[in-house]
Every structure is written in C-alpha cells, then in structure tokens.
C-alpha cells in the first residue's frame, strides 16, 4: 500500500485523474444536500438563463431547471450504473473465463467460440435494440443489459489471466494437497490474477460511462425528469444556439469523468502489470 502511494505521488497524471474521480464521487454523495434546487424544480422566471445569472451557476434549460443541480444528480445515476456494470460484468467474466481456462479442452474451445460469436454484435447495437424494444429503461435494466454486453470481453481477460497462472507451483501444490477445483480457482489463483482483473474493471468503468451516456443520447436512458447526462445533451440540442451551455456542460461532465477514470486506469495498469 505504501508502495502504491509512493508510485502514485510520482505520477501527476494519475493524481489528476484520481482527484477528479473523487470529486465526482463526493459531488454525487453530498452535492444534492448542498444545492438549493431540486433537479426538477422549474424556475419559470429564468428559463434558458445564462450561467451566473439569478443564482444559477451553470444556467438553466428550457424548463427553467438548474443545470448544475441536474448534472450533480445525474452523476449519481451514471456512477452507480457504471460501477455496477463494471463489477457485474467482471464477476460474470471471472466465473465464465476461469471455468473455461481452468478446465480447458472442449469447454475452453466452446467458450472461446461462443464469446467470439456474442462479441460479433457491437455492444451499443445490442443494448440499443434490447432497451429500445423494451421501451422503459430503469437503473436495473440498463445495468443488466450493458453488463451482458460487456461480459464476453471481461471473460476473455479473466481467462487470459488464469491461463498465465495455471502452471504455477502453488497450483500444483494445491492439487497435490487434494483441494477442490473451486478452491484452487478462487482461493489460490484469483488473488494472483487481481492485477489484470482490476485493470479490466477500471477500464470497463470508463467504457460503461460512455456507453450509458450514448444510450441516454439515443433516447433509451432513464425516464425524465430523472437527470441523465446523455439525455440532457439530446434534450437541449434543439436550443443549442440560444443556450449552448445546456449542451456543453453535460458534455464536459461526461468527458471529464471518462478522462479521469482513463488516467487512473492507465496508472493502475502500469502498477499492477509491471509488478509481476
């Protein structure tokens, strides 16, 4: 841990990324209680108001709602969904990838082929079709469907990680001891593969944010008036000339979060992988 902090200090970009991420998390947790408005509150005297005027730091949209407030509330749903997606898909990926890699042979080949096939549909298209036909997106449906779309990729990483450990001595030792396969996979191998897996989780986190924002943009985000960054962009696009800030700020929010996570993910990748 101390080693980790030391390495972190040497990497200004990672610090930047981590700080932005922590800032967003802080905003998501505490922001709503600090803000004077609710995200659906309509200030009809100040519709499409410029940033800085009348108590609206980032301006208002066509319905007079405070954009800063909506962005802060929006961060909650997007962080939650993205985090859950990256965790679920990684979990599912580990289960599937480990099983395939460990038992090898027929199962492994079958697994590889199936994953290849499922990965043939771009995740955005798959999610869009399913959510579009279902019609009504909730936090649950978004999480589940995007997780399913991402699982093949994480499964491959997990499998790769397991394969590199499979031939190690401690695995042989455990086998000789008579431990069950399950034990070997999850008690012996898993801790040693955490490096690439954690890198994968952080990378998935960034992709999830982009995916969820894109789905919101395509109209299958959370139902209004719940703020959804992607939907805020498309909602306000029609007044882009009168109120460019209504589109700009949600876009910057998305970009900053993804950049932050990517910077941190880069760093983690350097640390975890080079530690081998």
């Amino acid at each position, binding site marked *: 841990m101390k080693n980790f902090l030391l390495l972190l200090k040497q990497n200004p970009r990672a610090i930047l990324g981590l700080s932005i991420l922590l800032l967003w998390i802080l905003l998501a947790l505490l922001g709503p209680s600090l803000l004077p408005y609710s995200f*659906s*509150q*309509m200030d*009809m005297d100040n*519709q*499409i108001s410029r940033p800085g005027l009348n108590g609206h730091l980032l301006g208002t949209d*066509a*319905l*007079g709602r405070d954009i800063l407030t909506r962005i802060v509330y929006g961060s909650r749903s997007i962080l939650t969904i993205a985090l859950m997606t990256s965790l679920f898909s990684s979990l599912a990926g580990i289960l599937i990838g480990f099983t395939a890699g460990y038992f090898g042979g027929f199962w492994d080949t079958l697994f590889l082929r199936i994953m290849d096939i499922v990965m043939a549909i771009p995740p955005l298209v798959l999610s869009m079709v399913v959510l579009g036909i279902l*019609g*009504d997106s909730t936090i649950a449906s978004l999480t589940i469907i995007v997780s399913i779309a991402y699982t093949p990729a994480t499964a491959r990483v997990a499998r790769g990680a397991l394969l590199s450990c499979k031939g190690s001595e401690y695995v042989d030792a455990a086998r000789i001891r008579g431990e069950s396969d399950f034990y070997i996979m999850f008690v012996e191998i898993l801790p040693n593969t955490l490096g690439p897996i954690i890198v994968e989780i952080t990378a998935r986190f960034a992709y999830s944010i982009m995916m969820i924002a894109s789905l919101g943009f395509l*109209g299958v985000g959370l*139902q*209004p*008036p719940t703020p959804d960054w992607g939907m805020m962009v498309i*909602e306000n*696009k*029609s*007044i*882009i*000339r*009168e109120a460019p800030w209504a589109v700009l700020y949600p876009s910057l929010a998305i970009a900053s979060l993804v950049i932050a996570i990517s910077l941190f993910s880069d760093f983690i990748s350097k640390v975890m992988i080079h530690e081998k």
Partner: protein
Amino acid sequence: MKKILFALVIFVLGFSTANLFAGGEKETEDKMVIRVAEQVPNLITPGSWDGQAFSMNSSIYEYLLEMDAETGELHPSLATEWSTEDGKVWTFKLRQGVKFHNGSSFTSEDVKFTLERTQDPDLGHLKAQDFSIIERIDTPDDHTVIITLKSVRPTFMYQLTDYNMAILSSEYDYGKLGESAPMGTGPFKLSQLVPKESALLVKNPEYWEPSLPKAEELRIYFVADMEASVSLLEAGQVDVVPQVSPVIARRLTDAAGFKVVSPYQEHRFVALVADREPFSNNDVRLAMKYCIDPQILARACQGVLGETFFYNETPILNRLAQFKEITFRGRNIEKAKEHLAKAGYPKGLTVELYYASDHPYGSELAQTLKELAAPAGINLDLKGFPRDIYLSQYWLNAPMSITGWGVRVDPSMLLTLAYHSEGPWNESHMNDTEVDDLIDSIASEVDNAKRQSYYDRLQELFVERGTVLNIQVPYLVAMRSNVQDYRQPATMLCQYKYTYIE
C-alpha cells in the same frame, strides 16, 4: 513508410478541403420550386396516416371538400355541391373531368370505394368508427353520390374534410403501393419517393383547376430533427419548415429574411381515466385540476397564454365558435389536498402518466404536470415511449395519458369518438349518461341555437366532473420572406397549390 503515411495525410486533408467547396444544390433553372423540410412521416397511406408530415399527402391527394384557411368555410373541391334535407340522406355532386395521376377518371365509384374502405376490418382504418354511421351508399350516375346515414348528422360533411379521407382510386392497389407510390387527384403528383428521406412532386398538368398549382415542383425533405430543418432553412436550402418550436420562431422573427406564421393551435388532451383508480373518483380529478397553472404550462411550451397557448377543462378548443368562456378555477393546492383527503388519499397518491416522448411538447408537458402536481401529494410516475409504441401499446390502457389529437373542425365528431361512453377512442373511459345524452343531441340537432345550448351545458359538465385537461400548444410554420400565400386551414392540410415564391 513514413513518407507514404505523410502523403496519405496530405491527400486526406486535400480531399476534404476540396469537397468543402464542391457540391450543393444545383440551380433550379428558373423553375418555381418550393422546398420543404419536415418531419419523417411514418405511415402515409390514407387510412393509416397518423397525421404527421402533411406536405406530401396534402399535395398528392384531394378531398371532397376543402376548408378556407382564413374563414373556416367549406369550399367545393372534388365535390361541387352537397345537400341534405333531413340530415340523414346526403347528396353529393362530383366534379367532372377530373383524372387521377395514373390517368383513370374520377367517378362516384371512387368515392364509394374510399368510404367503404373505412369499414374494412383487415385495414385498421383510423376512420372506421367515424364512418360506421353510414348505412348505404348509392351511385346513380358517375358524378352523383347519395349517402344514407343510420341517424341524423347535420354536420356530416365536416367529416369528409378529415385528413384520412383522401379520395382514392378504386382501381389502384393502395395495400401494396400506398406506402411507396401514393397516387391521387391532387395538384402535384409524385415523381420520386425515397422512403423516409425525400419526395419530389411535380405539377399535375391535368389538374382540374388550370391556373393551379402556381409552383412547378415541390421538393420535400424528411428531416427528423427540427433544429436540422431550421439550419437548412437558414442556409437557404429549403423554403418552408412546418412546425418549429417557439424558441426557434423567436430567433427567426428577429432575423431578416424569414417569417413565422401560426395557422392554428394543436391540442393535447390529458386524459384522467374514469373507470379505474385513482381518477374514477371525481374528487381526485378535481384535485388534479386544482394543481394546474396554465401560465406555467404556457411557459414550459415557450408559448404565451392567451395568444399562442390556451388551456381549458373541456374538449372544445378556445378558438372554435362553440367555445364557452368559463372562469378558470385557478391553482389551489389546499383545495387539491382537501379533495384528495375526501377521496380517501390524505397522504397523496402515485399514478402513472403515459405519453409519446418524441412528439412535440410531450416531454415538456409531462414534466411540468409532474412538477405542478407534486406539492399536492400527487406523484406522477412518467412513462414516455416513442409515439408509435405509445399509441399502439399503451394509449387506451393507461390510467393517465397525454395525447395529441388532430383538430376536428366540427367538435361533435370528436365528442362522439372520445367522450361518448361507447366511443372507440374513449381514452378517458368516460361513462356519464348526461354527457352521452348531450353528445347524441348535439350530433343530431339541426337548430343551431339549440345545439349551442347543448354545447354550453356540456362544457359546464366537463368543468364540474370531466375527465380531460385540454392543452392547446403553439403550431408554428417558418418560411423565407419571399414565400407567399402559404395556406394551412384547421384541417391541417396545407394547400401548396396556392403558394408561390416571389
């Protein structure tokens, strides 16, 4: 290798720059061409046409009667005369010498076909219910149609102006060709249709009015995004954009070279469905009504209350002759809570509100209603869906809904369809004997004064215990200043045959 890459980079940059300045719309060689950018239509065959995107169909098809855009009076179109003695038997004399675009002659057979088609069960014709009152159609000769109704309907001729009642040729297979090759008797005929992208219409040389249409060509671009359509208008690539938002209208009115007209208001009915919880109890309906602040609704739609935006609690539009001015009850959260408590909901309630998320104003109205109702304890759970899915899956089954209704010039048609207990599109499931009686009386009453008294009583009833909130939203058409004589009456059928460019 690096050199190759470098060369590629230069090529790419050069290629893109070259194309920046190439292309663009060709000069139209002195032909008068009207270019329109409007919404992407879904289905366009009359009978299935859901009233989006009027430019194409209203130019290709024609109707028995046409409405004057200024006065609202009915003028002869494909029918030259119409009369009835008892309101039950209607005689129509048809225009002679009219040809369909494919050359076949227009006769009474075509009118009969068009009307009988509404009752075809395999078609799902949107006017099936409206025209189920026809008992019999006789065609004594090629230019006379005698329609016998099952009951007296003094205002029956208005039904023939409905946009789905385009006169079709009995010899044309609209089932197969209606979507890809629409064909009628109109001033413009279809030259080329790229589904969901564009349509090229050219002047019908055999049109029955030789001096019309004034333009040679009508080019229609289907553009999903309103902002995109307006950018085409501003770039000079189109001349007319039907349906722009008030924000854009303001921008264009301020800019030079454009003008915005407001032919009518569209309406959105909020249905408080009366045959199930919670709105089965009139107190709950009244509670909802006490939450409304029309001023805020108007602002949410960027309209001005009393000018481009109207609100009332009956199905009658403010600008119609039948409208009766009733003082609005005003927003009163205390009273709303009282009514809720009386109905057995002292702690408030939750109800799902279904609406079409991609229909203009749908989303704004839904969210504003939610905000307005919240302080009284009424929690509206919003469920927005794309319009087609909303209309086909949810609309008639929802406990509360927002729906855009096409303007029906004669309100009795709307009342019979939507507020009579046996009406097929009774979205609010209203079932009130007094209301039913009044609607029936209105439909059959010949005397104008008496009919108006029924209308008055009906509107009072609706305010007392009705199931609808009537929101009338701005409908604005933007165009370049040199476009003259754009006409669009309340039937929504734009009349491009009169339009010309200076």
